[in-house]
């Protein structure tokens, strides 16, 4: 371990000065300076597209800045690759998952650093042992030999965290590590962060969840539109003051709950099962209501959503819509009945990364009025997509930008827009505001409330307790593939939900 003596005189591990970075059409960072002290958790907040990830990627050697300087332990450094950053003691957990789906957990974590035995071959036993020890420390129960593609997204996030931890680096960058985790896993992560902090390591932590700041951060820096706004201790600021720094205006924090004016039943599920994912699920969904689904990782919530949308149909049970039993055996069938599905995994099942924002928005509505004799009516479609993108406030230079180049939260907005364009009667949302900033989150909540007021039925899976409690009219709680209770808005509170989810 490098000694403290080599630090800059003021105990500053990393100093970023006057950093700028532009991409075609956007100035992502504009003269940003930042200091990270040793042994602290330094949080970084800002709206979607504020430049947080870009700044972190520069520190982790992914991008090279257009101007500015990085000083590590007082010495100027040039990081031209993530490898070089790692050698300098900087590891990063990226916002999007970067694992190899067909390789095992252990291979993913130790790739390029596999332990070798006496013959110079990879020692699989040692590999497993190390992986098990690492995962134990994180408090997760994952088989080191499992193929990554078989694991849920939350599990994969834990593996990313384990991978970054395994480098034993001095500065650990975490870009929205909890966006895919439930509160319990997040608690584990916080415990580890405190442990690392006690060992004198520094953590740069990006989040859109305000509560986390007050829980773990020693310092908070705010970015807005690529510019540095300020740094403070979360103890000196209120939540509202922080939000004002982020968005530059006042923001209502109340959830726009649509009045409980539930209409007719639009979908009823009866004894749906798909073993071993979920068993015997029954519920009714009314027009004009939000039915929240709460539960821990592995509770089968996303599997249920996929089954309803016809992706992996249930093996037994019935679904009734408008008085008839329906067979939802493909997404097409579900869509023709007015269903829409925003999936939880942006990168794998959501975005067409190589295609433009426009192509990503339009893909689910290429029918009816928008197509004539197979020809897409480009002007009409483009207008509709532009209107949707404005409605959601997607931050992009124009609709022909590749979606890959948008910030994570803006990609999420595009995916939501894709499905809103289909004017669904039943909207299934799996973590709809994952990675979306507070301002945009409030806007999306407002939008959902408006749709619901117009009679749309919403099935919303969310691991964010405030979102579930704040938005839902009723809350269905799942535990290990079974429904353990359906609470009304009045009955529900955090304790009851956690109780039902973890029983």
């Amino acid at each position, binding site marked *: 371990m490098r000694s403290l003596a080599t630090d800059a005189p003021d105990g500053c591990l990393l100093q970023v000065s006057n950093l700028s970075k*532009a*991409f*075609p*059409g*956007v*100035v992502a960072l*504009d003269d940003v300076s930042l200091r990270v002290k040793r042994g602290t958790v330094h949080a970084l907040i800002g709206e979607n597209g504020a430049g947080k990830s870009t700044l972190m990627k520069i520190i982790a050697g992914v*991008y*090279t800045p257009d101007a500015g300087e990085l000083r590590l332990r007082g010495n100027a450094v040039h990081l031209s690759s993530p490898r070089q950053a790692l050698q300098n003691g900087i590891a990063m957990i990226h916002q999007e998952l970067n694992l190899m789906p067909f390789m095992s957990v252990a291979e993913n974590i130790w790739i390029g650093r596999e332990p070798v035995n006496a013959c110079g071959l990879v020692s699989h036993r040692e590999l497993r042992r190390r992986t098990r020890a690492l995962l134990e420390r994180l408090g997760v129960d994952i088989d080191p030999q499992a193929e990554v593609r078989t694991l849920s997204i939350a599990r994969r996030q834990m593996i990313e965290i384990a991978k970054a931890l395994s480098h034993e680096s001095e500065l650990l960058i975490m870009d929205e590590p909890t966006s895919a985790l439930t509160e319990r896993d997040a608690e584990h992560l916080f415990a580890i962060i405190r442990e690392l902090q006690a060992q004198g390591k520094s953590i740069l932590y990006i989040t859109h969840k305000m509560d986390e700041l007050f829980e773990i951060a020693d310092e908070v820096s705010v970015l807005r539109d690529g510019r540095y706004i300020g740094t403070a201790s979360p103890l000196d600021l209120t939540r509202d003051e922080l939000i004002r720094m982020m968005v530059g205006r006042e923001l209502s924090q109340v959830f726009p709950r649509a009045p409980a004016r539930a209409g007719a039943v639009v979908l009823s599920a009866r004894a749906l099962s798909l073993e071993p994912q979920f068993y015997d699920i029954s519920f009714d969904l009314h027009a004009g209501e939000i039915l929240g689904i709460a539960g821990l990782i592995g509770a089968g919530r996303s599997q249920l959503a996929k089954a309803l*949308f016809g*992706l992996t149909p249930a093996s037994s049970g019935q679904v009734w819509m408008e008085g008839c039993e329906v067979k939802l055996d*493909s*997404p*097409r069938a579900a*869509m023709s009945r007015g269903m829409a*599905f925003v*999936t939880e995994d942006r990168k*794998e*099942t*959501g*975005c*067409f*990364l*190589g*295609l433009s924002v426009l*192509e990503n928005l*339009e*893909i*689910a509505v*290429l*029918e009816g009025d928008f*197509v004539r004799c*197979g*020809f*897409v009516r*480009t002007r009409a479609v483009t207008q509709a997509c532009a209107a949707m993108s404005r409605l959601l406030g997607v931050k992009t*230079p*124009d609709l*022909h*930008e590749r979606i*890959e180049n948008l910030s994570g939260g803006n990609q999420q907005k595009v995916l939501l827009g*894709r499905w809103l364009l289909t004017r669904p009667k039943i909207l299934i949302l799996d973590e709809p505001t994952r990675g979306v900033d507070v301002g945009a989150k409030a806007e999306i909540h407002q939008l959902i409330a408006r749709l619901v007021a117009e009679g749309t039925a919403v099935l919303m899976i969310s691991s964010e307790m405030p979102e579930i409690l704040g938005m839902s009219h009723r809350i269905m709680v799942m535990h290990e593939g079974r429904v353990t209770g359906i609470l009304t808005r009045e009955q529900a509170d955090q304790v009851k939900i956690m109780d039902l989810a973890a029983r």
Partner: protein
Amino acid sequence: MPQALAQRTVDARSARRARGFPPEASILLVLIGLALTFELLGWILVRQSFLLNEQRLVVMILQVSVIGIIAVGVTQVIITGGIDLSSGSVVAVTAMVAASLAQSSDAVRAVYPSLTDLPVLVPVMAGLAVGAAAGLANGTLIAYTSIPPFIATLGVMVSARGIAKWYTHGQPVSMLTDAYADIGGGAVPVMIFLGTALIFHIALRYTRYGKFTYAIGANPQAARISGINVAGHLIVVYTIAGTLSGLAGIVTSARAVSGQAGMGMMYELDAIAAAVIGGASLAGGVGRITGTVIGTLILGVVTSGFTFLRIDAYYQEIVKGAIIVAAVIADQYRHRASRKRA
């Protein structure tokens, strides 16, 4: 602040300009560069102009028309993230079947003695049907089993070549009707090539078929969730590619006024090369017909340029291979540059 804003608008404008610059432009420059190189070498080595010879240009395009027709189909397959190795063999089968139905009554030992002097539409439709059937086989295998496209079309490639040989036990089919031979005469193959290119250029850019093709290549899972019938669409794409190979087989046999089981040997590789030189990415989601047309012309220029300079066929192949690899490297470099912009 106003200055920063102004800066932003300027950046946005230059970005739009950069994006407005079609990706084919760089490959078009390669084509022009190669043509001019041969022109220069022509004056130095053989004291003739390469380009100012109408006949040579016609022959050059004629030679690659067949490859071009196949490449139009292969490009679409590559955009879906797949590959089609069967094209060359399908050319052979269709050439045999179509020729056998296009024999004139002068034929000494006709394949079907009772079916001679048929109207030209019969062999043409039969050829297209054979091509479509081969494409359907490819598509069905790929859509409904988990066999990767490389293996599925490799299987069809081997079998189709076998069928072509078995069809007449290796005997060539000759003495075709004049009407049939006309399909390969004059500039007709060039017209067919440019016609199919135009049709599928429009289909890929302006129709739902095209949008779905790109979406499937970019992310098949997301495509399925967006309501696209991925399996059905893949079958359509492979069937189109097979039909175009069939069309290429018809043109090939008409040009040669005979059908032979060895026709179309390695055409699939030239077609893939044309698509990839033209900017199609084997990772899927990327590719354009205009690029493929330019890629085809590059292959044509190289072939006829070397013949013009009277350089050995061996060298031709060596250089052709190098050009293909160089084009792909250049393409990857361009991708990386546009992705990182760092």
